[in-house]
């Protein structure tokens, strides 16, 4: 299982989320290769550990080091013990999809494993430094990535333009109750936008139309109710891939610009083309 930053321990644990080992570090350097169409993922890399006592526990087999991979959306979790610092883990049977967590963990393998590192904080009493099999010695940070095709879907695929005669001139309304985000405009504007979509000016729609619509969608995602809708799943996958968390503190304008890859930057290109 993944050791989350909120997990509390009665014994010292070497982790970026505790100060138990002072400035000592334990982490993984990770490369991810994915063929989303085939459902294949290869994780490779190595772990970095600079505490001599923990290294010795691993060498003497009083502790084991391994990689935990968790993909709850495919009901998959594994702990792969390592025999060296390098690792290559292949997942070729569609085991991973959605938000995947990867973490290196060191766990005691014997009764009474003694933690003797001189870096352990002095306020830990002696009796807390003796571990039983399975107890955590060290845990790296959790590295997250989004597996699968959802993150690759074009943002445009989650919008649907609707003609609605009740809309005023130049106005649009965003509807979030359907599978695609509905953008309602009157017939005249509908025809204009439709024409722009098929021309070299189409990029102007990103900052002028899609940017505020994505902000509306992100705002709706702060509360529950839209999880089952396709636009929610696609934006959620993209946010997960970009490391964007949607909550009350999210800067929606900033998040939407990141999801649309800085859409205002396209204006410069458009005007250059117009000048020519």
């Amino acid at each position, binding site marked *: *299982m993944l*050791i989350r930053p909120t*997990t*509390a*321990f009665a014994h010292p644990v070497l982790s970026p989320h505790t100060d138990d080992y002072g400035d000592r570090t334990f982490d993984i350097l990770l490369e991810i290769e994915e063929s989303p169409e085939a*459902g294949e993922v290869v994780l490779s890399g190595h772990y970095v550990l600079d505490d001599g006592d923990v290294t010795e526990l691993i060498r003497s087999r009083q502790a*084991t080091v*391994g990689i*935990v991979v*968790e993909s*709850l*959306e*495919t*009901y*998959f*979790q*594994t*702990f792969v*013990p390592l025999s060296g610092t390098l690792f290559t883990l292949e997942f070729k*049977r*569609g*085991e*991973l*999809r*959605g938000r995947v967590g990867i973490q290196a*963990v060191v*766990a005691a*393998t014997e009764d009474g494993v003694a933690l003797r590192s001189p870096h352990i904080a002095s306020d830990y009493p002696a009796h807390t430094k003796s571990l039983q*099999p*399975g*107890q*955590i010695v060290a845990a790296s940070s959790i590295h997250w990535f989004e*597996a*699968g095709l959802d993150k690759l879907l074009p943002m445009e*695929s989650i919008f649907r333009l609707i003609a609605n005669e009740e809309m005023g001139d130049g106005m649009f309304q965003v509807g979030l109750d*359907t*599978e*695609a985000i509905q953008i309602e405009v009157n017939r005249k504007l509908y025809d204009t936008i439709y024409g722009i979509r098929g021309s070299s000016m189409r990029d102007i729609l990103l900052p002028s139309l899609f940017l505020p619509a994505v902000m509306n969608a992100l705002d709706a995602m702060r509360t529950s109710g839209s*999880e*089952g*809708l*396709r636009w929610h*799943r696609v934006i959620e996958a993209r946010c997960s891939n970009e490391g964007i968390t949607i909550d009350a503190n999210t800067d929606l304008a900033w998040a939407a610009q990141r999801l649309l890859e800085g859409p205002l930057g396209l204006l410069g290109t458009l005007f250059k083309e117009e000048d020519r």
Partner: protein
Amino acid sequence: MSKLLYVGQQTADFLSDNIEEHLDRYREAGFEDLESSGDWRIPLSVEVDLTPLEDLIADNGRDAEVRNSMLVGHALASLTPSLARENRVWIRLSHIEGIAYARERWLHNVSQEKIAQAIRIHFFASTWTQCRDDHALSRLWWNHHIASSIQPDDPERALRLILSTADIRSNLIERARVGTRLPLAKAIVRRLERDAQLAASESAFRNFMKALNIRAAGAQLEIWDEERMDRFIAQCVE
């Protein structure tokens, strides 16, 4: 055997956005006429034999759920977990090949006010929890997949235990952080097999899971051997 088909995004959106307009089709008429045109037949590179779906029993008892899970598990044995999260596969199956079962099992005797909601829950697999717990057919596939992971040599036996009460399914399958820890899930099922009292008593099982959640949190139990794991489970039962 034939290639497994799924519906295109346009069709998936069309069906999901127009449930109310299609109530008669869900109740009786079906979607065969619509299926013959549009993007209803996109083939996956997965070979399946869907004839077992004709034998699904529209009953909500445990025996039917076990049998149905085995049937769907066998029919779609070559589906990977990643593909089994793709709701457009399940939309196709619940609207075409499996509609008779889905209709009879989940829409029979449902009031007019509640039928659209029942359709949304059991025919679309839009979220992970709907896919795992609610969709008429994907729920059965995931039951079988999880049981096969726990007891690869006899998934039916594991299914009988996991599905013996709603409480056991909910604690083992719906709380994925326990159920996905395979050595732990295997040990729980081993214990349930020989401890009828634990399997039958809702309160005993809940207390057991409470103890297990407290004791197993923050430990890498995956490094234990079977004997130590069984000892740990016994302590949680006490």
